[in-house]
């Protein structure tokens, strides 16, 4: 089956309104920039977005928010995003905040074929409300379900035509667990190579998890907090 697509528009062609999407990235680092742009262009609506953060006003998921394409945001930290705040306060946007480790592990569980996990994160807090809990070796844990996402949109550094992926530095973050979790996983890469060009020992995400892949273009890779030290 053909996995390689020419660009983001072609790779996301069948994402319908009201889909549940996973979007990789931490802050603006390692986000699927091309797919987000294509989603804005396509104009799909009522999306549920599972992503650690919600971007900034004019970049990342912020671009989808601006066009009112997001119905619900599932994230651990929504940060500085004025449009997000406005929609939230106006009741235009539904938000579910969940602990970051729980978010990552619920993705992992989906990719591992495990229906639920037990985690101590959130025990005794409002996160625990309405959730089953269980005590193991004297410590309480919450049961959290594996995510159920229609599409996972991830960004990798390099990929091959079989869908094998390698990530770069901390741009890895949520991308591997999300890549494993999507019913359909779409990977955009900075460099797409032929099968055999990547060392099998270096693959982070095996191609079995990746249904579609394309080489992205015009990566902005915006830095959220540019911090430097002085030359001595």
């Amino acid at each position, binding site marked *: 089956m053909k996995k390689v697509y020419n660009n983001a528009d072609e790779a996301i062609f069948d994402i319908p309104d009201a889909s549940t999407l996973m979007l990789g990235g931490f*802050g603006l*680092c390692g986000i699927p920039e091309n797919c987000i742009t294509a989603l804005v262009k396509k104009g799909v609506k009522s999306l549920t977005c599972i992503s650690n953060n919600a971007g900034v006003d004019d970049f990342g998921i912020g671009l989808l928010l601006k066009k009112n394409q997001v119905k619900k945001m599932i994230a651990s930290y929504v940060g500085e995003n004025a449009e997000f705040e406005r929609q*939230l*306060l106006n009741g235009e946007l539904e938000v579910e905040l969940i602990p970051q480790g729980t978010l990552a592990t619920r993705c992992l569980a989906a990719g591992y074929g495990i229906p639920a996990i037990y985690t101590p994160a959130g025990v005794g807090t409002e996160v625990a409300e309405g959730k089953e809990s269980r005590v193991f070796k004297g410590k309480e844990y919450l049961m959290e379900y594996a995510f159920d996402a229609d599409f996972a949109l991830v960004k990798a550094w390099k990929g091959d035509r079989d869908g094998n992926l390698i*990530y770069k*530095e*901390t741009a890895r973050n949520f991308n591997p667990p999300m890549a494993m979790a999507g019913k359909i996983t779409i990977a955009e890469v900075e460099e797409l190579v032929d099968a055999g060009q990547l060392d099998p020992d270096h693959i982070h995400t095996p191609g079995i998890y990746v249904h579609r892949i394309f080489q992205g273009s015009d990566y902005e890779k915006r830095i959220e*907090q540019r911090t430097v030290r002085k030359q001595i």
Partner: protein
Amino acid sequence: MTDFYFVIANNKTLIMLDKNQIAQRIARELKDGFYVNLGIGIPTLVANYIPQGMNVTLQSENGLLGMGPFPFEGEEDADLINAGKQTITTLPGSSFFDSAMSFGMIRAGKVDLTVLGAMEVSENGDIASWKIPGKLVKGMGGAMDLVASAKNIIVAMMHTNSKGESKLLKRCQLPLTGINCVKKIVTNLAVIEVTENGFRLLEKAPGVSVEEIKSKTEGNLIVDGEIPEMEIG
């Protein structure tokens, strides 16, 4: 360090620690070989005071062990950031991993020490740090995972809030981040241990009296014998 803040309150001069000195005091809790997760704010400053020759590895929960200093200008790398989304560098021996593994190592108790800020801590070690009702909520990030699993949690914070009210309480008033988890608190006034019987005063900031600390601690404060002054640096 003699660079204290002088603050006039209740018509008397108090000497209290600034944020860097709180960080400096916390750095004394580090041990050789420790893997440490530092939260945003005062905790981040602890990295500046790791004793020379001590091998401490900083974990950044977005997927890095062995976090190095900020890059030199022109060497920033958009793919290399910390959990505060700041550009950083790696060090010899650094490793990258994904977010699921990152919280895996946190849950599995591999991280020796977690330092984080707080809005409130209660005398049984509950912590509130992520949400103020009526104010816009940004989220808990990784804080709930960290406090639920870390073996050793030190809170770095000011002793009182901007209204002058104690942040060391019998019971937290704000929504909780975690329960029965804080082991130690380092504030601008004191070092306090969380015990089964409440807060226990371990050290006082230079020039600060036990009475002052007591008056600014709403929770039960145990004072046993002579309380030494904090050693900083």
